[in-house]
């Protein structure tokens, strides 16, 4: 039902092509540093959207897996070196992803017995449990002292990290795109509408949800791994940080829940905006007010997120143009899953 459309492929090629060229065109440290965080949050948002947006299961605990990925990376390289060229920590990321994904299955299986608000709270406890463990499992995590990663000597320090996080982000987008068009995606979107009814149509809902949860947090953990290596020094309160959790959800709501490009767009707007506002008005704390104003504007003008709101607008315009009537504007019908955005 949803096939490869030339426009969709072109869109993806252009976006990722430009992103690939970016660090070679703009080799300034501060730009690449910001670009790293933009892509990091884009990747996190796309991964979160796979579960939270597609199935409607709003997880507040994904950052626990971000922290686990970060610690896995840091702990691993306390014991084995990063290699002479410093690329080994990138290469082990898929293993960390697979490990975390498998470990997440029993957690998901338990958490997925709850729904809606309860699920949000249950996953939120994961965040605090993980942070507490990071503080208290001294022998492994070094507690509040934190862990340091060996520092690589790249010619342009940020570039390899940027390219690595771009790779994971691209992978996450590919996964999100694939799921939108496969049987699993159909199940997830139906679960979002009416989970009990889905079960009555013979759909193995538990399997679908647990698989999606595992894949989603595996990608988050891989991003946590790159982040740890990039930052070079991790503490429990930063590796498992509620602010990172918010940072991966907000872009999804800004861009459009359950859409393919919405979370990406959201991250590309929010992260630079936040950095710029903090830079301009940071000293006076005014930036928080400015940030809040941006949000207020979005809530008032684009309550369903940018992409769905624009689609409604375009649909309404097309309908008016098509029928010649001006009176009836489009009703906010949700877009079919099949649409390509």
């Amino acid at each position, binding site marked *: *039902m949803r096939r490869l459309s030339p426009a969709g492929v072109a869109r993806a090629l252009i976006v990722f092509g430009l992103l690939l060229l970016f660090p070679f065109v703009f080799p300034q440290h501060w730009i690449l540093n910001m670009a790293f965080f933009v892509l990091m949050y884009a990747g996190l948002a796309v991964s979160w959207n796979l579960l939270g947006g597609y199935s409607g299961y709003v997880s507040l605990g994904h950052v626990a897996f971000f922290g686990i990925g970060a610690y896995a990376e840091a702990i691993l390289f306390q014991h084995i070196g990063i290699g002479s060229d410093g690329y080994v920590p990138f290469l082990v990321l898929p293993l960390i992803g697979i490990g975390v994904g498998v470990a997440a299955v029993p957690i998901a299986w338990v958490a997925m017995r709850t729904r809606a608000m309860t699920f949000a709270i249950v996953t939120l406890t994961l965040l605090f449990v993980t942070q507490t463990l990071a503080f208290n499992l001294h022998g492994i995590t070094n507690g509040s002292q934190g862990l340091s990663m060996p520092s690589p000597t790249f010619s342009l320090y940020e570039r390899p990290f940027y390219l690595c996080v771009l790779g994971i982000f691209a992978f996450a987008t590919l996964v999100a795109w694939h799921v939108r068009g496969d049987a699993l995606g159909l199940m997830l979107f139906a679960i979002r*509408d009416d989970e009990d009814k889905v079960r009555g*149509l013979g*759909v193995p809902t538990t399997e679908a949800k647990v*698989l999606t949860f595992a894949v989603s947090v595996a990608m988050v953990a891989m991003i946590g791994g790159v982040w740890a290596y990039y930052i070079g020094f991790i503490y429990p309160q930063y590796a498992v940080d509620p602010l990172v959790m918010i940072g991966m959800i907000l872009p999804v709501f800004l861009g459009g829940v359950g859409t393919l490009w919405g979370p990406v767009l959201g991250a590309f707007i929010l992260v630079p905006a936040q950095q710029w506002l903090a830079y301009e008005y940071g000293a006076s704390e005014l930036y928080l007010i400015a940030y809040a104003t941006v949000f207020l504007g979005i809530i008032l003008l684009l309550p369903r997120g940018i992409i769905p709101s624009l689609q409604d607008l375009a649909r309404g315009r097309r309908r008016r143009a098509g029928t010649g009537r001006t009176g009836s504007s489009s009703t906010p*019908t949700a877009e079919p899953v*099949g649409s390509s955005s």
Partner: protein
Amino acid sequence: MKTATLLEVRGLTKHFGGITAVDRCSFAVPAGTISALIGPNGSGKTTVFNLTTGYLRRDAGDVVFDGRTVGRPDPMRLYRRGLTRTFQQARIFRNLTLVENLCLGVPRGWPAFLRRDIGGNERARAMEILAEFGLAELAGATAGELSYGQQKLLEFASVLISRPKLVLLDEPTAGVNPVMVERLEGHIRSLHARGITFLVVEHDMNLVMRLCDPVIVMDHGTKLAEGPPAEVQRDPAVLDAYLGD
């Protein structure tokens, strides 16, 4: 010759707090019939549906479907064995297209999870069913755009894709205009002719009397009477339950 029993419930019981919604209810649905389950409001008909299909956990009793006792009814497993149902308020997937609403119900295992392009056969069969229900032109529309009557048709259509043995219909004509009632009746008859057994909860007595046989009457959570429609209609206990004492 006795006809085979497709579904049998024995001593089904369900309490909600101090209220006994279903009280040792027993009845059987013979294969190849359009059976009706009727009774005054609050007599426990929908609860019986929920207990039978696993949407509610029963307190006591047995459910036997297609010759096998169902240990713990589960909607997913029962559907795969050929027992499916609709709901009183049509429950459809508003954000999915009509075709997607139907394709969702095609049983598939693990490996098929990641298949893109939900198979051509599935699609063809979904279109065939939609065409039969007069919804083919809307196949690509989202289900939320349909009228209430069309949503009822869609829900009915969507349980057919798995070729069920028994369909439980919960008030298929409630809130639906007379023309749509006739269409629904026609669909039930033609599907019945093709071998599907029905158990229908319905308040439209004219429809029940011309469509269903046997008719099972419930009152206060248990079976009051059972038999051919003409017989049930004359039963004093039934009249009493409906008209009050």
